[in-house]
Every structure is written in structure tokens, then in C-alpha cells.
């Protein structure tokens, strides 16, 4: 699953990339700090409501993005349920037992994964790679070659995904069909992956040559057509985010414990 930037005018799309990055870091810190399922559920709910109303991502769109994680989260949940220490026993299956604490811990780690994924998803969906490059280079003074590496990855990965689809279609058009059984599928995927890899390397070489021929890397700095996004609203939001996060952290350390 590759997430492209979605053009639009949602509220979060009008916030500068660095302020949004601060907000994501705040949520990530809280997600790491919170230990109970209830706290994690609250954080996830907050992230989902933000994604819906500030980023304009529909509930269906969020479910589609998060469902991708289920294959990873379910095994993690099961392992944690049976391995986390606890005293309040709920169920015993042979030598394995499920405790209230284990359930809580498993719920917490699973919800944490959803939260971290969703916030990253919202960030990529609402941040134009060009604005990110401008902010990294002009505000944080990161060398533009490095910043463009991030931007190119964000721009390029969806293109590669398209290339993969195109190659898959080419196989079908040429009469190729996915074989049955494990061996057939393995054969199909190795052929497809090899073609995609080959094309990706070719595309990367061509793109590098095209960038160089247009003077990329010619000078230590460059100019930017697009002005930096206004940062006032973003800064207020980022400061608010930091204050709320600090307050919640203080609360969990001093009151919760």
C-alpha cells in the first residue's frame, strides 16, 4: 500500500508541514506513554475525528487505510494476550491463560499501532512533498539534496505502484495468468517482482539523469518558486499541541501512577 498526497483544501492541508510534524510527534509521544487500552482508544478516537473533520478523510477511507494493518495487528494482539504478565485471570486454555492485564496490554499495543499508522497516513495525505522540501530546506536548513530524497520518495512510490499495475496488465495482455496453488502464485509473483524491480531501477537511473541535466546539485543552494506556507496558524496549533501533550504527560506521571 502506497499513500500519495491528495490535492485539496482541507484544514490540515493549509497547515505548514513542520507544524503538522510537531503535532504528529506529540501524538507519537502520547501513544508511547499511554499504557492502558482506554487511553489508547481515546487517542485513536481523537486521531480519527481529526482525520475526518480536519483532513477530510472519510470514515470509509480511514477504515480502508487501517484495514491494511489488521494482518499485522491480529497476530501481535494474540501473542501479547498470552505473554503479557497479569494476575486477574479471565480464561485458562491448557497451560495458557488470559488475564485482564494481558487483555489490556494487548489492546493497548494494537490500538497504538493503529494510531501511529493513521497519523502518518494523514500527514502524507495532507502534505504536498514540495511544501515539505521547502520547509525542510528553508526553515530547518537541511541540505536540499537530502530533502529532495524524501520528496522524491513520496512522489515516486505511487508512480512505481502504477508501474507495477501496468506491468501486471502487460502480463495479462500477453496471456500471462496467475497460476494456481502456492507454486503457481510464487512463479507469478517472482516474474512480476523481477519486472517491476528491473523497471524501477531503469526509471530511477533515467530520473537521476534528467534531474542532473536540469542542474540538480549544481549549486549548494537553490531558489524556490513556491513561497513557504503561512506558519502562524500552524505555530499556534503546534504550541497548543506541545502544551496539551506536556499536561497529559504530567498527569500520567503524577496522577495516574
Amino acid at each position, binding site marked *: 500500500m502506497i499513500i500519495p498526497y491528495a490535492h485539496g483544501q482541507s484544514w490540515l492541508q493549509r497547515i505548514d508541514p513542520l507544524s503538522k510534524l510537531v503535532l504528529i510527534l506529540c501524538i507519537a509521544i502520547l501513544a508511547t506513554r499511554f499504557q492502558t487500552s482506554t487511553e489508547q482508544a481515546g487517542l485513536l478516537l481523537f486521531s480519527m475525528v481529526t482525520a475526518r473533520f480536519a483532513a477530510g478523510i472519510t470514515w470509509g477511507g480511514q477504515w480502508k487505510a487501517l484495514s491494511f494493518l489488521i494482518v499485522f495487528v491480529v497476530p501481535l494482539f494474540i501473542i501479547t494476550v498470552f505473554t503479557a504478565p497479569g494476575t486477574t485471570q479471565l480464561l485458562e486454555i491448557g497451560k495458557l491463560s488470559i488475564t485482564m492485564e494481558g487483555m489490556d496490554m494487548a489492546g493497548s499495543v494494537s490500538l497504538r499501532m493503529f494510531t501511529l499508522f493513521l497519523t502518518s497516513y494523514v500527514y502524507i495525505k495532507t502534505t504536498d512533498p514540495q511544501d515539505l522540501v521547502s520547509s525542510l530546506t528553508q526553515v530547518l536548513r537541511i541540505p536540499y539534496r537530502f530533502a529532495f530524497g524524501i520528496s522524491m520518495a513520496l512522489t515516486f512510490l505511487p508512480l512505481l505502484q502504477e508501474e507495477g499495475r501496468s506491468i501486471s496488465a502487460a502480463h495479462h495482455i500477453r496471456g500471462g495468468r496467475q497460476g494456481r496453488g502456492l507454486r503457481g502464485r510464487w512463479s507469478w509473483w517472482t516474474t512480476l517482482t523481477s519486472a517491476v524491480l528491473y523497471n524501477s531501477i531503469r526509471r530511477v537511473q533515467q530520473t537521476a*539523469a534528467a534531474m542532473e541535466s536540469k542542474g540538480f546539485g549544481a549549486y549548494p543552494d537553490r531558489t524556490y*518558486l513556491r513561497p513557504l506556507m503561512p506558519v502562524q496558524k500552524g505555530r499556534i496549533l503546534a504550541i497548543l499541541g506541545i502544551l496539551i501533550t506536556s499536561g497529559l504527560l504530567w498527569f500520567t506521571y503524577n496522577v495516574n501512577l
Partner: protein
Amino acid sequence: MLQGVINLDGLSYTYEGDSKPIIKDITLSIPNGQWAAIIGPGGSGKSTLCQLLNGYLPRSGGGHREGIVSIEAIDPAYASIADIAERVGVVFQDADAQLVQGNVEADVAFGPENLRVPPADIARRISASLAAVGLTSHRYARVRELSGGQRQRAATAAVLALEPRLFVFDDCAASLDGAAQVQFVQVCASLHEQGRTVINTSGRFDDVARAAERVIVLQGGAVVLDGPPQELLRKHAEQLVLLGLLPTPEGAAATSAQHIAATSAQHIADASSPDTGVFDTTKHPTDVSSPDKGASYITNPFTTVDLPSKEGATALLQLHKLSYTYPGGQQVLREVSFTLQPGDWGILVGENGSGKSTLSRLLMGLIRVPRHSIFWGGKDIAGLSVADLAEDIGYVFQQPEHQFVTHSVWDEVTYGYRSRRHRHTALTAQEVASAEQMLEAAGLLGRRHDSPYLLSQGEKRILSVVCQFVIPKKLVILDEPTSGIDYAAAERILALCRERVKHGTALLMITHDPNLVARDTSFVLQLHHGELQ
């Protein structure tokens, strides 16, 4: 006043892994401010020369160069990136590889930003460049929303915005429609008037070459002719025909416009009355009476089983009021209707972005087909998979590279056979013979072990066609199969097409070269802003 010259002295170049040089001992000088066209058949070294001029070869692309390349007294292979970018702007054939930012404005701004041009000046350059290539209305468009021709124009605008002293256009007019080609010649003329050096390459003695001051003809990596275009046309026309740079006299004679207009009207009319004649057995006129015309380039490669002949056959394909809007809301097709019979050879023409490729992709099921709008043998194809449609329909991609699925020419041409059985099962003697005959007809037998990606553009195109013709299909859709290739290679492709049509295959060909195929076609469909004219 601009100073300096381009000097090539004893220039030879050999690709890594190759034993023979592709550029052989070229010595020539191009004064600053000259407009020169370098033309030659596929594989003559034109693109290689362009890459040597901007230093990509051998610096990044490897290989071995001998001799001198000097541009304004610098050697591009060893000069700094800034020195090259300020002197030389190259537009390569593959537009997709040159558009690196994802949207038109950002891509055009990319070069000037790298060269530290002030933002106000960049904005001016963007407006001027996009206006020059007729893409102003697409300034804020995403690159992937553009058609192939529009992408090529965006790539050209991106280099125009660099404002270098030397422009190299590597066959970048090939995928442009007629109006855009005229505009491109005007752009080159304007740059020439400004005193900039302009070099165009092409596989044909086209309008750009005719308008240039000087034409340099390459063959086999060496210069064989050099002079003003009118002089070359007057004194060396026969040689230019033999090289495939001019059409043969018989190839230049096109079928009358009246014939095309009459048959086109018939096909559109058939599709407009679905209640009575959707799949009627009306025989549609098809000109297959001259299969040998232009066959001097090939031998008959077909030993395959014939498909049902046209006599008494039912309609293969019918489109009934097909409209299509992309998920982003961009409507590209409006109520398109026509029918196609077995053995028909229809051509689809229209300006860049008129919806031709979208239509062909819909026919192949590559994008979701609206219900009750496309019928194959009487069945609605909505919901059918590409693999199901591929049993009967072949598809030649606009970009040959998108079609390649293996790592050698031989594997490509035999992929269709191997995909029908276990991949490790050996080919039958008949299949091997048939594939070899096909490659021989395509002029690619000697390159059977090479990677398809290392072929010249013309060779890639002909390989992409051959791969679809190896196994007979009822319909083959070809998306600009003759674009950017010399007349000899184009004639090879057309001869292969004629043979297929003779054996009952229907063809639907998207082209910006209607005159090349006019004498063969059953009908012409013209799309304008998504509507059939």
C-alpha cells in the same frame, strides 16, 4: 552575441558490454546559432549522440568514448553540472522519465530553481514556456493526468524554461499531433531567431528537418550526408528513401479522403442504431487488396492458423454511446459509438489529449468499463478481466517499454507461447520457427539475446508489435505504433499489419500518421475533445 561552437572530432562511442561502437569516428562542427537536424534510421546513433552532448554518456551511463566532444570549449563528460545545465538543454524521447515533480508547473520550475533563478523570473519563464508549447491551460495539472503528447510538451517546456544556449530535442515531436508539431517547428524557429543553437533529431526527413538550416544524416553511427535540407532532398532523395528517411513514392500516395470519409460514416452509422443492427452482418468495405505494397522490407512471416474470414462474419466490437469520466472528475469521452468487423482496419486520430488512449485502454479493460457501452461479440465487456479479453484482443502499448515483461528479445517474442503452458516446457519446433520468422521480418533476429530495453526506439516499437502478432487474435489495438520511427521501420510494421488483416484480424490503430496508413484502412475515426467527429 553568443560565442563558441560544438566540435566533435573523431568521436566514437561503445556501450558497456557491446563489442562494436554505435558512434563511429564522427567529425563535425556546428557553429553557435545554427539550427541543425540530425536524422537517421533507428539504431543509427542519434539518441546516443544527444546523450554524449550533455555528458550523460559516458559519465553516468558508462561505456567507452573516444575522440573529442567540445561545447563552448568544455567537455561535457568532465564539466560541472552547472556548466552543462547552463549551456545545454536536452529533451529526451521518454517524457515520463524527465518529469520528476509530479505536476506541470513544478516540473517546469525545477530546472531554473536549481540554477538559482529568482522566483519572479521563474514565473515568467513558466508562462512563456507553457505558452510556447500550448500547455498554458494545464499549468496546474498533475503529470499523470496528461496524455502522452501533452507529457512530451511539458518535458519540452521544462527545458525551454532553462533558457540554455544550446537546445537538443531528441525526437520529441514524434508523439505530437499535427497542430502541436507545427507549433514545435515554430518554437525551434523562434529559438533560432534568438541566436540559440538548436539541434533536432528524428527518424524521418520531417517538417522540422525541412525547416532547419542544415541536415546531418547518420547511418550506422557515421555521417553519410550533410548539407542544407533542400539540397539533400534534391540531390539525394533516392538515398534518403533507401535509408527510410523519406517515404517510398508508393507509400506517399494515400487513399482518397472521399473513400475514408464514406467508410467512416458507415461504421459510425452502424453503431448508432443498436436496436436493429448492433451485431448485424453487414459487410464493411476493407481495402486489403494491396498486401504487397511496401513489402520490400520484409518477407512473409506468417505460418499461423487463420482466423475466421470476413465473409459472413458478425461484428466483433461495438461501442454504444460510450462516455467516460476519470475518478478525478475529468470527462474524456462523450457518447462514442462505432462498430468493428472482422478484418477491418480502423484508425483513430485526434489531437493530444482527445481521449484516444483512454478509449483504447477501455477497450482492453485496462480501466473500468461503464456498463452497456462496449460489446464484444454481443456481450457486454463490463466486468470482464483483462486476461479474459486478452484471449481475443491484443494490445500494443503507446510506450513499448510498458509492454515488456522479460529480459531478452527472444523471451519477449515467445512469451505468448510460454504463458499458455508451464513456463519450463520447451517450445515446439513450429513455435520456434514461427518466432524466428517474426523476428527476421522485424529485422531483430540478430538481437534475440539483447535486452528489449537496449533496442533503439524504432526497434522497441516493432518488437512490441511483433509480440502481439505471434499468436493470432481477433482484434489488435495499436496505440501509435509508427510514432517516432523511420519510414522503413514503419513500413515493416504496416506490412505485418496488412498480413494480419489478410488473415482476418481486425485492427484499431491510434496514429498521428494517418497518411502512412490511409490506403490500407477501412475507416477513420476522429476524436475531438472526447467526441467522434
